[in-house]
């Protein structure tokens, strides 16, 4: 067995778990800050989540070994999702309810 091939998923899992535990810190922020601060926190939360998602897609789902087209399609979804979510958030702040 190729030991390098065995270890890589464990290293990836450790990295993803570490990021998840670090998210505890972000989640503990009491966001009674200014609007700009809230948008920055929202952008950070979305960004960190999408980085984790991309790592799962590239590593666990083996897209890094897949044809380039599949990698581009999945990256396109990641980028579009980030842009749409941030856009949706900013649009929501522009049209507050009540």
């Amino acid at each position, binding site marked *: *067995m*190729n030991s390098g*091939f*065995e270890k890589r*998923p*464990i290293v*990836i*899992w450790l990295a*993803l*778990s570490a990021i*998840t*535990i670090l*998210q*505890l810190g*972000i*989640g*503990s*922020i*009491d*966001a009674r800050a200014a609007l700009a601060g*809230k948008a920055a*926190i*929202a952008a950070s*939360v*979305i960004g*960190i*989540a*999408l980085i*984790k*998602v991309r790592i*799962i*897609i590239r*590593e*666990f*789902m*083996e*897209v*890094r*070994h*897949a*044809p*380039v087209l*599949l990698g581009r*399609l*999945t990256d396109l*979804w990641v980028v*579009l*999702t980030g842009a*749409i*979510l941030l856009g*949706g*958030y*900013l*649009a*929501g*702040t522009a*049209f*507050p*309810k*009540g």
Partner: protein
Amino acid sequence: MTSIASTRSRAHGSPETERFVPGQPDMWAFVLFEAFVFTAYFTVYVFSRARTPDVFRQSQMHLDLRVGVVNTLLLLTSSLFVARCVQAAREGSYRAATTNAFLTMLFGSVFLVSKVREWAMEIGQGFTFTTDEFFSFYYFLTAIHFIHLLIGFVALAVAVRQLTSPARRSQVIVETCATYWHTIDFLWVLIFALLYVMR
């Protein structure tokens, strides 16, 4: 259908020269479709949240962030095991592959129990689907993910059946099942961030 033996070279060939689609391409079309559907759900959520941030923040305080973290770690661990299952099958270690598939099921099951327990606690405290917008999204997103996870168990059962039957073994099918399971994992990573972490 591709046999495990005939695709074993994938594990040893140079990734740069032997690129391959993991699993069936149809599954990838489904994964991308599902991903965009969930993007639509998430967009409505963040839009609604930004319109009434105080309602969402106050209701969100009733969720235990630590439970969300533990659930995320459970699914990440299940993803690790299903990735190892694919590796082991590719190398012809069918027993190890089956063990890893069962470990995936184990961590997925603990996630299911944890999720039902969390729902029971929230409902017990009076927070239901109709309490407010936040809890409507909370129950909708977690329930639809829960259903996807249940389907994931069917996929894992298919993988185990493939691995335990020498006449039926197909690396492509095992990879297809794993691809579906990983999709459930990465969708949860986003749900966790939006429901539990976002402030």
